[in-house]
C-alpha cells in the first residue's frame, strides 16, 4: 500500500489560506551548548570497538545491528523455533570460532542486564569484517557502474556492427555455452548465496552473502539480456539454444550436477560457501570464464563477450573471493578450533575436489569447438589448479592429494 501519491486536489477557485507548519529557530545543532556529552568525543558510536584503529563508515552501519545474548541482549531472544533454537544459532555450520562452546550468560530474577564484565567479542565469528566494506552505497554504486559499462560496451559493439565478424562456429558456441553459464550463476545466486543468508551468524556475514547473491543474480541476467541482444543482432542466433545446452549437452551435465549439488549441501552454510567460493569458482568458474571464453573470444573476432564475462569474473576475483578469504582464513588459524576447522575443511576438500574436477573434465570438448582455439584444456586446467592451490595457500590450507588426479 504505497500511498505516497498526493490526494486529489479538491480546492475551489477561492482557496482558503494554506495551513502549513511554521519553521521555528531552535538552535538544536551540534556545539550550540556545553553539557555532558556535547563534545566531539561523544559523537561516535561508543558500543563497539573497531577492528582496526578507527571506526569505519562500514562498521558504523553494520556492527551490532544484530544483537547477541552474549553481549547486551539482556532479555534474551524473544522468539524461538519449535525445537527451541533461537536467534542465529552458531551450530548451523560445523565450523567453529573460538568461544562458541563457552556458556551464554545466565539471566533471571535480579541478575541485572549481565553486560558488565562480559568479554567482547564473545567469540571469533564477531571478528569478521568484510574487506570490501559493502553497505548500501557501495552495493548500488558498484553494480550500477557494472551495468552501465556493459550496456555501453554492447551498444558500441552494435553500432560498430562488430557481431557481423563472428564465425558460424563462434555463434554456436556463444548461443549454447556462454548461454548455458547464465544458469550456473542464477542457481548459485538464488539457491546457494541467498538461500544461506538466514543461516550465518552475524550481520557482517549476512551482508556479504546478500551482496554475493546480488552479484550472481545480476550476472545471470547480464548474460540472459546479452543473449537477447545477440538474437536481435545476429540473424541466425538461436536465443533458446542455451536452455537446450543446459538440459541436454553432455559437456554441461557435469557442471549442472555439481552446481545443483551446491544447493543441496545439508544444513551447513559454511560448507556451502566454502565449497562454492573456494573450490567450485576457481576450478570451474574461472576455468570456463577466463580459461575458455575470455581467451577464445578475441581470436574469433569477439571483443564483447569478454567484457560481459569479465564483469562477473571481476566480481568473483576482486570482491567475492576477498570476503571468503577474510571469513575462512582466520578459522584455519583459530586460537581454539584451528585443528577442528582444518580437519573439517580438509574433509570438504577431499570430498568435493574430485567431484569438481570430474565435472570440469566433462567440459573439455568445449575447448575444441571454436575455430580459433583457446589454450589447450589441460593448460587451462593446470592454470586453474595453480590458482586454486594459491587460494588454499592464502587460507593456510594444504593442497589435497586429490588435486593431482
Amino acid at each position, binding site marked *: 500500500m504505497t500511498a505516497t501519491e498526493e490526494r486529489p486536489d479538491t480546492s475551489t477557485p477561492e482557496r482558503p489560506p494554506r495551513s502549513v507548519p511554521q519553521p521555528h529557530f*531552535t538552535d538544536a545543532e551540534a556545539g550550540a551548548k556545553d553539557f555532558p556529552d556535547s563534545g566531539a568525543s561523544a559523537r561516535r558510536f561508543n558500543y563497539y570497538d573497531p577492528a582496526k584503529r578507527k571506526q569505519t563508515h562500514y562498521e558504523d552501519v553494520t556492527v551490532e*545491528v544484530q544483537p547477541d545474548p552474549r553481549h547486551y*541482549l539482556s532479555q534474551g531472544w*524473544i522468539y524461538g523455533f519449535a525445537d527451541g533454537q533461537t536467534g542465529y544459532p552458531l551450530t548451523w555450520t560445523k565450523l567453529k570460532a573460538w568461544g562458541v562452546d563457552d556458556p551464554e550468560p545466565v539471566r533471571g530474577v535480579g541478575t541485572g542486564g549481565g553486560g*558488565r564484565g562480559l568479554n567482547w567479542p564473545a567469540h571469533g565469528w564477531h571478528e569478521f569484517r568484510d574487506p570490501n566494506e559493502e553497505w548500501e552505497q557501495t552495493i548500488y554504486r558498484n553494480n550500477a557502474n557494472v551495468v552501465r559499462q556493459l550496456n555501453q560496451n554492447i551498444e558500441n559493439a552494435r553500432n560498430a556492427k562488430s557481431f557481423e565478424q563472428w564465425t558460424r562456429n563462434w555463434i554456436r558456441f556463444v548461443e549454447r555455452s556462454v548461454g548455458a553459464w*547464465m544458469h550456473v550463476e542464477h542457481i548459485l545466486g538464488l*539457491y546457494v548465496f541467498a538461500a544461506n543468508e538466514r543461516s550465518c551468524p552475524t550481520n557482517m556475514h549476512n551482508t556479504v552473502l546478500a551482496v554475493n547473491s546480488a552479484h550472481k543474480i545480476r550476472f545471470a541476467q547480464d548474460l540472459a539480456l546479452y543473449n537477447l541482444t545477440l538474437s536481435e543482432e545476429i540473424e541466425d542466433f538461436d536465443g533458446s539454444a542455451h536452455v537446450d545446452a543446459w538440459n541436454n549437452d553432455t559437456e554441461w551435465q557435469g557442471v549442472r550436477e555439481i552446481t545443483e549439488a551446491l544447493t543441496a549441501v545439508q544444513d551447513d552454510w559454511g560448507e556451502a560457501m566454502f565449497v562454492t567460493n573456494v573450490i567450485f569458482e576457481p576450478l570451474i568458474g574461472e576455468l570456463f570464464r577466463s580459461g575458455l571464453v575470455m581467451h577464445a573470444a578475441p581470436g574469433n573476432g569477439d571483443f564483447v563477450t569478454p567484457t560481459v564475462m569479465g564483469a562477473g569474473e571481476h566480481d568473483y576475483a576482486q570482491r567475492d573471493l576477498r570476503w571468503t578469504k577474510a571469513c575462512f582464513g582466520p578459522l584455519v588459524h583459530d586460537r581454539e578450533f584451528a585443528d577442528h576447522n582444518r580437519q573439517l575443511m580438509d574433509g570438504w576438500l577431499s570430498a568435493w575436489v574430485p567431484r569438481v574436477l570430474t565435472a570440469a573434465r566433462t567440459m573439455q570438448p568445449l575447448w575444441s569447438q571454436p575455430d580459433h582455439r583457446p589454450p589447450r584444456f589441460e593448460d587451462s586446467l593446470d592454470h586453474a589448479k595453480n590458482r586454486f592451490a594459491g587460494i588454499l595457500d592464502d587460507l593456510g590450507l594444504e593442497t589435497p592429494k586429490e588435486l593431482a588426479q
Partner: protein
Amino acid sequence: MSRQSLAKAHQKIQELAWEPQYHEPYMKYGTDYTFRKAQKKDPLKQILRSYFPMEEEKDNRVYGAEDGAIRGNMFRQVQERWLEWQKLFLSIIPLPEISAARSMPMLFHAVPNPELHNGQAIQMIDEVRHSTIQQNLKRLYMQNYIDPAGFNNSLRNFHNDYAGTIGRQFAEGFITGDAITAASIYLTIVAETAFTNTLFVAMPAEAAANGDYLLPTVFHSVQSDESRHISNGYATLLMALSDEGNRQLLERDLRYAWWNNHAVVDAAIGVFIEYGTKDRRKDRESYAEMWRRWIYDDYYRSYLVPLEKYGLTVPHDLIEEAWNRIWNKGYVHEVAQFFATGWLANYWRIDGMTDEDFEWFEYKYPGWYDKYGKWWENYSRLATPNGHKPIVGEDVDYVYPQRCWTCMVPCLIREDIVTAEVDGHHRTYCSETCRWTDVEAFRPVYQGRETPNMGRLVGHREWETLYHGWTWDEVVSDMGYVRDDGKTMTAQPHLNLDPSKMWTLDHLKRLPPLQSPNVLFNEMTDEQRAAYIADYRRQGPAGRPAPASA
C-alpha cells in the same frame, strides 16, 4: 530501458527458471502450510540492469539531501522534542530491516515457486539497503544534532532496554518459527502492507513539520521499494489460500500478526506522532485520523476485505477492537504516559506537555484533559531535580502497571488485563488476544491440529525481572545510560540542557529499589492474585488507582 525492451527483458529472464535435475535444494525452514494446489504465479521479476541504476539514483538524492541539510544548518530548525524520540525509533528499525532480509531465504525454502524467488532475493538486497541507510541517518543525527547522547550508545540501548525489546518483536517475529507465519504473514502481509505506511509515510511527514526533512527523504526512499515487497507477499498469500488446509493457519496467523503489529507499532508510532510533535495546528491529522485513513480504509477495507472471496477469514473483530483501543480506550495516550513515567529507564529525553498541547489534545480527543491533563501537569512540576524523586516515585495517582507477556507493552487498559498460569508461572496479558497468542497460537497443537513448526515465545519477557531489588542508580549505570561525566543521565524528563537542571545518578538514590510487578505477582497466594486482578481491572484511565469503594 524502453517499455518494449523492458517487456522483452522480463520475458527473457523467465528462461533462467530452474527445474532441478540431479539434486533438490536443501530445505532448512519448516512450515505447517502446504502448497500442493497452488497455481504458479508469475509476479514481476526485477530486471537488475534497471534496478541498480534506479536505486543508485535514489541514493544520490538521499545523500544529496543529507549534504544539503548539513550545509543549510537544518538542525537550527529541528525540534528537540521530535528528534529525541528518534533515538528510540532509529535504535530499533535497522534490525527489523535486516531481519526482513534474513527472512527471505525462509520463503525460498517454504514456497515452492521459483517465480517468486527472484523477487524475494531482490527484496533481500533492498533490506540491506534499508538497514544501512537508516543506520547512516542515525549516525548523521549523532554527529550534527545538539545532543548525541542516546544516539551514540544506540545499539547497546536497543539491546538492553524494555522499549527496544518491544520493538524487537518486529524483527525476530520475521525470522523465527513457522516460515510462512513469520516471513509471509507477520512480515509481508501485515507489517509491510499495513504498517509501513504509518512508519515510513505518516511519521516522516510529522518529522518535516518539526523541521527535519531528512527523515522523510530517507524513509520515502525506503518506502518506494515497499510496493515490490507487497506484491511478493500478495502472490504468496494467494498461493497459500488455494490449499484449503491452510485456511485455519491463515486465520490464526492473521489474528496474531494483526494484533501484535497493532500493539507494537501503534504504541510506538502513535506516541512519536502525538507526543513528539510541536505542530499543533488543529487541521493537522491526529494519529487516530491517520490510522483511520491508512490502516482502516486503505489496508483493511481495500486490501484485506476483498481477499474474503478467496477464502481468507478476516479478523474483523480485532480490527474494530484495535480502533476501539486507539479511539475509546486511549491506547496511545496511555503508552505515552507510561514512557514518561519510566523516563529514567530510557535513553532519550521526553519533553513535557504545555497548554498549547493540552488544547490540541482536547480538540482532537475530547475528554483528554480530564483523563491525562493533571498527570502531565505533575510531570512538568517534577521535571527538574529539586529535592523530589522522579515522577515514578512520587504520588501522582499512577499505579505502575503489569506487563503483557506477549506484546510486552504494559497492561495499560486496565480493565482488559487477563492472566494465565503457564508451566507454573503466572503471566499477565494486556488483552484476551495476547493471552490467546501465547497460550493457544504459539503451541505445537492448535485447535486439535498438529502444528509442529509453530514457533515459541521465549526469553525474559518482563524487563523489570532482571532488576528486581536493584536501586535505580545501579539499574541505569548497569544499562549504560550515563553521559560522559560519569553521572549525568542520558534520559531527562525535559529538554533543558543546562547541566544544573539535569538529573544525575545521585538523584536516583532517593528512590526505593525497583520491584518487578511480575515477580511480586508470582509471590502472591491465589487469593491475593485474584484480589489484585479484581482491583487492577478497576484502575485507570491514566493509571489511576481503583476508586476506594467497590
